[in-house]
């Protein structure tokens, strides 16, 4: 194999040498007057365009920087005529390719720079499995009362503010406030007391800016206890204004 390769190379060199001799011989035969010297050809323009940064979030700005040579007329699509070199801040609302055209006596040159605009981060969408009603159940806290009292006590104000905030953020939710009492005392008085407790929660929500037409109230007194033992922790569970989702 080595021998064959060497043979081909030797033949190639020979053919090249013969060709050269023939060409030179032909030129030598035709002697013409030299053409007039051409005017010096204008130099073609050059152009570059860049964006820094070239990836941004919607609303942010980027700096376009361009440089040209041998150009007399420079423009960028969408911006218009610009200096032959320079920079400019732009705030594209969507991804865009900036296109620069540099024209000069030597021709036209263009350059491009791509700017990618990221879509705004979508508001964290509630996972599709969590309904508004479930959010309500997770976020809204019942209000608890002292024995025989219907004013919203100090340690419940935090819950109440949180509830009001949630309802402000979910303006389509309607609610019923259910008033409850513990087992002590009389059926009729406890129903009336539960009415005042439910109304106290409703009035506090209205004061916090929630529309009264979104809030219904009802009293269950001691008719539907959450807890049926006869001790204070159980009684406290039963002295409450309960939030019920109505959509």
């Amino acid at each position, binding site marked *: 194999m080595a021998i064959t390769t060497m043979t081909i190379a030797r033949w190639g060199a020979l053919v090249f040498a013969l060709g050269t001799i023939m060409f030179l011989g032909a030129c030598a035969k035709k002697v013409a007057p030299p053409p007039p010297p051409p005017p010096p050809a204008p130099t073609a323009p050059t152009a570059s365009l860049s964006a820094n940064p070239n990836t941004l979030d919607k609303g942010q700005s980027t700096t376009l920087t361009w440089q040209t040579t041998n150009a007399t007329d420079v423009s960028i699509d969408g911006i218009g005529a610009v200096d032959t070199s320079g920079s400019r801040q732009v705030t594209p609302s969507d991804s865009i390719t900036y296109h620069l055209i540099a024209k000069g006596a030597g021709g036209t040159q263009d350059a491009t720079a791509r700017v990618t605009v990221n879509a705004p981060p979508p508001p964290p969408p509630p996972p599709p499995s969590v309904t508004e009603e479930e959010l309500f159940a997770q976020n809204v806290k019942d209000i608890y009362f002292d024995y025989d009292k219907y004013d919203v006590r100090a340690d419940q104000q935090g819950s109440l503010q949180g509830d009001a905030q949630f309802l402000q953020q979910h303006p389509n939710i309607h609610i019923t406030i259910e008033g409850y009492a513990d087992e002590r005392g009389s059926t*009729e008085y406890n129903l009336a*007391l539960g009415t005042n407790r439910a109304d106290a929660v409703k009035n506090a929500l209205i004061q916090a800016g929630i529309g009264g037409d979104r809030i219904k109230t*009802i009293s269950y007194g001691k*008719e539907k206890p959450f807890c049926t033992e006869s001790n204070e922790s159980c009684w406290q569970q039963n002295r409450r204004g309960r939030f019920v989702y109505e959509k």
Partner: protein
Amino acid sequence: MSNSARPIRHHALIAVALLLLLTTTGSAQDWIRTGTGLGVERVRLAASDFKPSTTDASNTDLLKTFNDTLWSDLDNAGIFDLVSKSFYPLQEPGQPSEVNFTAWNSPPPNTSMLAFGNLGAAAGKVTVQGWLYDVKNEKSPQVLGKQYVDNATNDAVRVIAHKFADEIIFRLGGGVAGIAESKIYFVSERTGHKEIWMMDYDGANQQQITHMGSISLSPRISPDGSRLAFSSINKGGWEIMMYSFDLNRMVSFPRFGGMNLSPSWSPDGKIAFSSSRNGYPNIFTVDASGGKSLRLTNDQGPDVSPTWNRKTGAQIAFVSGRTGLPQIYTMEADGTNLQRVTDQGYAVSPNWSPNGQFLTFSWMRKYGPGEPGSNDLYLMDVASKQWVQLTHDAGRNDFPCWSPDGRHIVFQSHRSGSDQIWTMLADGTNVKQLTSKGANTQPNWSWK
């Protein structure tokens, strides 16, 4: 002191119609007992078992029902010294001619009065003849002679016994009608829902009236017994509902919105109740059809549980939490002349006596930290605000309501371990349990 409640401690303080019996108990605690319209000397009465007057096979059963019912009615009346049957002569009369006066008017029975008679079924009908004899007046002994005919059923015989008992009670009880034919309305949970039920005054014939399937409370029968007001929860809230015993069905009554609770009838058929239609629960009155609404109180309350002066219809007592723990207040039926009548504790469920003189109510008199306290029933003379305690150391007691004759009080008590309906004489004695199935609460006694 004249404007605050105070216990009755001395005989000098006794209101005219208030009879005090000082009872010394084994626990060395003096319980003051009171009764209304009771004579100091109880009439000594014997009630001989009625005899069969036919040979019908059903007589035995009917006689047992009749004799048990009559005895129970006379015993419940609270105005007799009922002579034990073990003292009776062997020969009990079925006819006037069979009465041996000496055997009855001398010891051991030593009775003044003797009730006796006969009962006989024939062809599906039963005939009852009954007499009341003053056996110490042999020359002219007959006080009463009655004959009744009805279907030969236990229910009919029970009604006959009630009627005969009421005749005796009317004659010997100072002209006050007996209560053996009266009814008691109450709330029962025995079906799984709180529904309104009714029963005879002695606990017999318990039957369901409403089938609302939700929560129904506070039954109150109209003075003529034709309509029953109560409150029931529905989608919109608590509303006053009306049942007609003429039509045996619910009839319409206006819905007011908000919470509407605890109706109470005036003697002339108006209704007072608690309503939060304007915000806080306050006392309103309406006419029998729900019109002509009048607002009597206007405060944060809550105001609830009104009860009319059953004699005059001119005053209303009610419960208010306007100063904290609920207290009992009285006012004129137009809302003027407000007076607080309890001075401490937790006082609820007032009920005004038929003679207009007394309130009975449930009171935890010394409620507070470290005070064990129990809900006991009390009786207060409205004019003087003097009170006596009717129940002692017997669980939670609530919703007392007077009998038509003013001699008895029906109430709800937890003394047996669950809420049940009980009756007692208005002096706190002769306590009897009427219900035992499920939980039973909020009794309301008919007006007659």
